[in-house]
Structures are given as C-alpha cells and as structure tokens.
C-alpha cells in the first residue's frame, strides 16, 4: 500500500488518471481539428498500432533522444551519466538488442552486439520517432525482436534554424538546419566534460564513515553529426539521397573506481539512396562504421590494450505497395551483407576475427478494409558455416468507431536471431556459443488511442511470453557461456495522455509491469526480471503567459532489482525539473534545471549519475 501511495504522489496525478479513464468510459465528445502544441502527438492515421512522438520546441531546446524515450512508457534509459553520455535502453524489459532501430528506414543497430548508443543521434536532426510495439511494417521487418523504432529525420521544408546551448559540466552545443525546396543540411557539435561531483562510497556501501566527495573523471563526450538530404522529382518518382556522418568520443569510466584515460570512439558514415513511386520503393544503402576502444593503461579491467571493430554494410531493398479496393498490400524483399572485423591488441599480441553474414528477408503486410491486418516475415542469415532463419507472424484487428477513438488488438509470434557477438566472439571470460537458437516471443498487444479537442492519449496493454531467451551462466572457473535457457512472462500497462486546460498543459505517462521469470533455474524461477523499473511515471505541467512558458516535470521510477534472483533492490528514483522558455519570433531563449533537488542516483549498477544540472539555450529560426 505504501508503494501505491508513493507512485500516485502527488495526488494530482491520480486525479488526472481517473479523469482520463472516466473520459474514455463516459464521454461522447465531438473532436475538432484544434492544433495544440503538445509534447506528444499520437498518430491516428497509421495502418499500424504505432506511436509517433513528434518532437516539440521544448525537446529541441533542452532534450535529447534519451530524455524523449525516457519519458515514453515502455522505454527506460541506461546511461553512463552526463550530457551526451553513452546511453542505451530497455524496452518492456528487453535489452536494446531486441529492438530494431532505424534511421529513415536504414537499420542502425550495432551489427556485432545488436546494441545502440542513443547519444550518437542528436535530437536536432530528427523530426519524430515512430515506435511499432505490435505489428511491424514490412519495410522495417528485419529480425525485429520485440519492437521497431524508426527515427525520422528533419523534413525538407525550406527553413533555417540555429541553436546554441550551454550548461553544467562544460556542456555546450551548436546546431543548425538549412533547408531549401529540395535539400536539407543538418549539423550538430556537442562537447561536455561531465566532471560532476558525487559521493564515492569507497566501495564499502555498508560503511558510510569512509565515504568522500569526488568528481567523476574521464567521462567527457564529444559528438559531431552531419546530415545531408536531397530530393529530386523524376517523372512519377522521387529520388531521395541521404548521407549521415556520426562521430562520437567518450571516456570510459570504471564505475566508481574511475579510469583516467580509457576511451571509446565511434564513427559511422551512412549513405542511403531511395527511389519512390506510388507502387514501388527501391533502397540502396551503405554503412561504414568503426568502434575503437583504447585501454592502453589497462584501466577497464579487460586486459586488452585496444579493440577496433570495423563493419561495412551493403543493403538493397525493394518495397511494393498495392492498393486494390479495400485491400492494401506491402511486400518487402531485402538483402544485405555485413562484414565485421574485430581486432584486439592484447599484451602486444594482435587477435582478429572477420565475419561476413549475408541476410535475405521477405516481409508482407496485408490489410483488409483497414481493419484486419496480417504480417508475415521470413529472415535468413548465412555465415560461413551456419545458417539461421526465423519466421515472424502477426494478426491484428482495428476498431475505429469514429475520428477520436481507435483501438487495435493483435497477436504476434516474433523472434530475434542471436547476435554475431553472442555466437562467435569470445570476450574476456565469456566464451561464445555457436549453437544458440533464436529467441522467441509470443505477444498479445492492445492499444487504444483517443484524441479530443483538449485531451488525448493512448493506453497499451500487452502480454508477452519469451522463450529460448539468451542468458549467461558461469561455472566453477568463472567462465561464462551464453545459453537459450531463459524463459519469462511479462504483462504491462502503458498510458500516455495530454490535457489542455486554459493556459495549462499536462503531459503524463505511466508504465506498470508485472514480470515473471519462468526458467527452470531455482534461484530465478517466479522472480521478477531484473534491470528495469516495474513502475514508472512521468508528469509535466506547463503554463503559458503570452510568449513565456513555465514548466515543471517529475519522473518517478521504482521496483527494480539488480539481479535475477531479486536479492538486491535498486533505490527508487524521484527527479524533478523546471524550465522557462521565452519565444519571440524568430528567436527563442530558455533555461532548464534538471534534478532540482540535487539527488544522487546511480545508473544501471554503480555508475554515478549527475545531481542538479542546468541548460541555457538560444535558438533562432525563420
């Protein structure tokens, strides 16, 4: 009961929740087309039960991709701490490698590990984020795992924008967009030393007498990002060209026992060509990336001096769209080749491994009367000695009674291929297992979206059974090995809502999860899945005084265990932030203070997170 009270505090949150639910049940309201400057906008037109997060002026002023996803129910951020810090995420309890992430339709997950560093994508160059939690569009269906996220870049619409920001811990950024009628140039430069103060427990958490205050070291971040897009009409078709260059560099800390010089550099050049017509889309993509770890001082405990990972990806995709009466068909045929070369310099000895994988996939979506939807996809991956293939299948139904309410329900069988890393690459005391099978997920998803004139939102409910989940086990010698012995059930409720009352705007998100490990392992059986919060809530309140908006936001997260046996519970988190933003066309000036009560938390395990931080931002646009 105490926890219930905690999660519902402050009381206004529960009031809003009941009001939203009541509105759904009791009200009959005629929607109008009033356009509101909401932080979240829900896409009512998609054929899929997707969520589109359209980025707001507040997001551009103060946010990044981690802050946007961090307030989106279902997603939780795992960060090493600080501005632009290396950050990944969990989605409904699964790691990022279970979520395919695309940038304008080009998959950008790390081909080796399946993970992704969200901080390599500046928000400034994005327009919106589409999240497909249930049925996956055919043109994005490629070993999707549990969900798909597509980052939509800024559109080409004749604009010029410039943003300059500064803040705590040496944070500064300069970003700009220049767009004409058929081109866009978007670029961003960011740097932060992230040397924030925190309390070091001297690695004796049960003895507070030896704690001391120190600064986080070797936590600096530098990021350069450039995006060029062009568009040309060719008779009935449109030719789209895109090139992205990402460069990211960060110090790699050793949790509380910080390293001084170990660092990670990531760079990627992605080139995409797309020819689109009414019935056809043809993609030719290439991605050339490199990740380099430097640990010449042997600070991060992996006994290696340096590690270079280079990968090249060549991709071809053809999408056919057919509309016949009330039947919509999307067929996607895709092939791509990934070549990964990993080199480690260990104690003056060079070790390398080159793996080439060829992928073939066919995916098909069929929609009848915009109500009944089928999705089927097949994926085959061929390496030198092994072949893997998976089939994914979904069946969905949409209830669209009127323009303001839409419900979708679907059942799905999804799967995730083991990553190259899990199959073939030994890492320290972890040995690879080439016999791994694909993970399997069986899901029921339902989503209801509503959109009145001043209130809107979405409610998701899902049940998922996961089988053959890849987990690691260690033996007497301390050697780890991946196996398919994981098995779990998870059920969750996710709600997002916005509400305008006069000059007030309220945004609210809630995520409640009940998970159960059902593997045969005694220590974990019947326990909750670790490493994500089972209760999470975000609420923000904005008040407009002419051109000035004042905002306050709170994020509470609770009920997370660090370990699979649920022996050790993570501390609950409660973070407040405030902001003020003054808009006077063509310029905008804002300030935001995060974590105003200067609370200190740790990241996934022991990485110290910053206390109070501030950001000043100035932007100008035509």
């Amino acid at each position: 009961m105490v926890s219930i009270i905690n999660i519902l505090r402050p009381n206004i949150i529960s009031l809003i929740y009941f009001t939203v639910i009541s509105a759904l049940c009791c009200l009959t309201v005629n929607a109008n087309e009033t356009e509101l400057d909401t932080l979240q906008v829900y896409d009512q037109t998609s054929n899929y039960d997707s969520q589109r997060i359209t980025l707001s002026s507040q997001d551009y002023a103060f946010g990044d991709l981690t802050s946007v996803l961090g307030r989106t129910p279902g997603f939780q951020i795992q960060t090493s701490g600080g501005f632009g810090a290396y950050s990944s995420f969990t989605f409904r309890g699964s790691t990022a490698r279970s979520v395919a992430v695309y940038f304008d339709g080009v998959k950008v997950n790390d081909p080796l590990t399946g993970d992704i560093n969200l901080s390599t994508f500046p928000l400034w160059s994005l327009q919106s984020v589409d999240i497909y939690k249930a049925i996956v569009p055919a043109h994005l269906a490629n070993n999707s795992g549990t969900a798909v996220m597509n980052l939509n870049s800024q559109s080409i619409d004749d604009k010029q924008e410039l943003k300059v920001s500064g803040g705590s811990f040496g944070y500064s950024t300069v970003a700009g967009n220049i767009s004409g009628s058929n081109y866009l140039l978007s670029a961003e430069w960011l740097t932060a030393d992230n040397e924030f103060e925190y309390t070091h427990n001297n690695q004796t958490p049960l003895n507070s007498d030896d704690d001391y205050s120190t600064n986080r070291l070797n936590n600096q971040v530098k990021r350069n990002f450039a995006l060029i897009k062009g568009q040309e009409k060719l008779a009935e078709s449109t030719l789209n060209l895109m090139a992205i260059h990402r460069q990211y560099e960060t110090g790699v800390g050793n949790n509380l026992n910080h390293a001084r010089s170990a660092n990670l550099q990531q760079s990627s050049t992605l080139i995409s060509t797309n020819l689109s017509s009414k019935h056809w889309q043809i993609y030719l993509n290439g991605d050339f990336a490199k990740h380099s770890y430097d640990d010449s001082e042997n600070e991060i405990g992996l006994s290696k001096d340096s590690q270079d990972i280079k990968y090249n990806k060549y991709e071809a995709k053809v999408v056919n769209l057919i509309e016949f009466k009330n039947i919509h068909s999307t067929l996607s045929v895709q092939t791509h080749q990934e070549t990964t070369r990993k080199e480690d310099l260990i104690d003056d000895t060079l070790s390398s491994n080159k793996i080439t994988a060829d992928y073939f996939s066919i995916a098909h979506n069929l929609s009848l009367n915009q109500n009944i939807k089928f999705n089927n996809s097949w994926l085959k991956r061929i390496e030198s000695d092994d072949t893997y293939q998976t089939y994914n299948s979904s069946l969905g139904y949409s209830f669209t009674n009127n323009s303001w309410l839409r419900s979708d329900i679907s059942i799905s069988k999804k799967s995730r291929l083991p990553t190259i890393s899990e199959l073939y690459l030994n890492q320290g005391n972890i040995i690879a297992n080439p016999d791994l099978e694909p993970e399997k997920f069986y899901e029921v998803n339902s989503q209801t979206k509503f959109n009145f004139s001043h209130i809107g939102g979405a409610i998701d409910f899902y049940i998922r059974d996961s089988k053959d989940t890849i987990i690691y086990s260690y033996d007497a010698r301390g050697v780890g090995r991946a196996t398919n012995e994981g098995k779990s059930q998870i059920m969750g409720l996710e709600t997002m809502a916005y509400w305008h009352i006069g000059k007030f705007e309220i945004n609210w998100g809630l995520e409640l999860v009940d998970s159960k490990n059902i593997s045969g392992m005694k220590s974990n059986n019947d326990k909750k899945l670790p490493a994500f919060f089972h209760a999470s809530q975000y609420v923000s309140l904005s008040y407009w005084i002419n051109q000035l908006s004042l905002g306050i936001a709170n994020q509470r997260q609770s009920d997370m265990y660090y370990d699979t046996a649920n022996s050790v519970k993570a501390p609950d988190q409660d973070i407040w932030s405030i902001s003020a933003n003054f808009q006077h066309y063509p310029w905008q000036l804002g300030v935001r203070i995060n974590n105003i009560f200067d609370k200190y938390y740790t990241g996934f395990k022991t990485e110290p997170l910053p206390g109070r931080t501030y950001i000043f931002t100035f932007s100008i646009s035509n």
Partner: protein
Amino acid sequence: MNKLVVTSLTAALLGGCLDIDSNDTRTAPLENAAILTVNSDNSSSDLVAVGNDYESFESLNPQAFSDVVLSASDNSVYLINRFGQNNIIKYNSEEMGYVDWQYSTNNPDIANQESNPYQIIEKSSESAYILRYNTGEIWQVNPSAESDSEFKIAEIDLSSFDSDGIPEMVAATLYNDILYIALQRLTFYKSDNDSFLIAIDTSNNSFIDLSENDDNTTAMALNVRNPKELKLVDNELYVVGVGRYAVTDWNTGELLEATEYTGGIEKINLDSLTSETIVDDGDQDTHPYGQIYSVSVSGTDLVFTGYNAWGNLNTYIKIGDTSPVIFDEDINGEDIRFAKFDPSGQLWVGIADAVNPRTLVYSKNENNEYEVVQTVLTTLLPSDIIFK
C-alpha cells in the same frame, strides 16, 4: 457507477504490480557451517547459515555481485568481496548478517587500485593478514579496529618475488605463528614460472628462509604450478596446483597453447621442509583427473576435485597411499564448487546445479563407506563453505 468500477479496477491493478519494501536485516549464528552462494549468471551472491539440523538460513548478506569468498577464525566470519569491490566484511560468528565492520582493502593513496583481496588470516583479535592478489603488498590489519584509519597496521612488500612486481598471493595459513603464503607468479595470467611458498614470522613481519641452499631467495619453489588453495593438517601443508590453463585466441576461441598439466597436490612437511607430490595431474597425453582444483583431508582420506570442461568436474578420493578413485559416480560431471571435510569428518560437496542447487553431506557408514546423510538446499548455487 462506471467511474467507481474503473477506479476500483485501477487501484487493484496498481496494487498487484507493486511490492512492499522490506529492509529487515536477517541474522543467524554459525552453528554448523556457512555457505557462500552465487547466482548462475553471477548477478548476485548471498551468505547462508546451516543450522545444527542442516536447515539453511538464507538472505544474511545478499549482494549484487558474486566474486566473493569466506574466511573464518575462532569467533569471526569474514566475507571477502574480491575483484571490483575490494573490501572485507566482518561478522561475529554468533550473529552472521549483523555487520561488525566493512573496510576497503585498497590503498587510498593509489588512484584506481584494484587490490582484489583473496583471504584474511586472523592471528589474534588484534592482528590479521590480508592477501591482496592484484598488488605486491600483503596487509597486516587490526580486526578490532573501530575506524578505517585504525584498520591497517602495516604492509609487507612481496613484489620482489615476481619480476612484474605482483606475485599473485593466492592462499595462506598460519603454523606456529608463521604465515605461509602460496604465490602463483603468473605472467599475463599464464603460469609459466615456478610457483613459490614463502614464510613470514608474524612476531616481526620478517621473511623466513625456506630455501637455505639458495642464497638468491627465501622462497621455496613448489613442485606444482598455479596453486589455488592450501590445507594444513597438523604439520603437513597440502598445496593444490591447477597447472597452466589453455590459451585461446581472444576473439575466435582458437586454441593457441594447450593446457599444461603442471599441477597436482603437493604435501610439504613444515617442520622438515620436505616435499612430495602425492597426486600428479599427468601430462599432455594422460591426465586422468583433469586440472586439479581443490583438496580436503580428514585422517587418511584425501578428497580432491578435477576440472574437465565447462561446468564439468569430478570428485576423487585417495585413501592412504592408494591411487585416487572416483568418489561418487552419481555426482560425476556436475559443476562441483567445493568438496570439504568438516571437523567431524563429514564431507560437504557443493553442487552448482541451477535447477537443484544443493550441498550433499557425506558420512561414513558401518562399512566404512561414504554415503549421503544430509542434503542442504539453497536458492543460489553453493560456491564456498566454512565450518564452525
């Protein structure tokens, strides 16, 4: 009415998904044994007390890491948090779970140190020695210290015993107030050098010469390489050597250098300093026990474990001068974490079976054969054990 129903349902749903915190500290006395348990994915560990009726009391010290071992003295139980944690927790053996103290074993003057404590050997209530595996210095500490500033008494430099300055002090024992320490002397994690036994006079922390015929060192070269643990019985010291692990390519797992069977069990008479290898682990062609991992002795019975492959160990028994034989066919090939005799001669075998983690207690029957007389069930995998 609708609102009421929805409100009730919502409250029920919220209630069903949230747990109520409990911060109660559990304690239990050391009656029979204490077992350190770890999770199969190494995400956590726990301290478990085993009562006189072999019932287990769990959750005495749950932690979110697993590189942990136990040490014991007359009245204290020490929980040693090794790599990545670098600290020791002391409990009174009458009240395990209630923390007497927790102190770091890192030198505060050295940034970024990973001292990696391996064992604490208590000489008295005011003096103990800590093996700091990743450093060149052993610490003398005060187990009764009331603050971290009083904890460290002295340090003894062992760096001269290895050319890289870190001799990998792995295990130690006290005999006649002399601290005997086994040094692995690894190079880049490989056991290519002779391992040493050294001795320190604890009255003045000076080295005792165990190698009187060699003026270059005070250390005694061991017959076995890569020692893992020591067992003292009367004046005889049993040393278990693992030998050299195979070397594989960091990335591909390709075998670069095969396992070297240079280990075994060596028995050293600490009075005469005579030594003999009582179990040889074989050679590249014949190695019947795999790599030898642990030893325990009770009377004329010697039990040891051998590592065959990932998660696969066998337990052997050697009675007197006979050749070793399989101890119990029923537990062959299990992930055996320990096989230790208690003071009464019962053998406790920890089996890290994730489905059914258990510690089997063997006792001799009327035919003088060992049979399982008790099974101690734990939630996590049994990993280390100490006895009252």
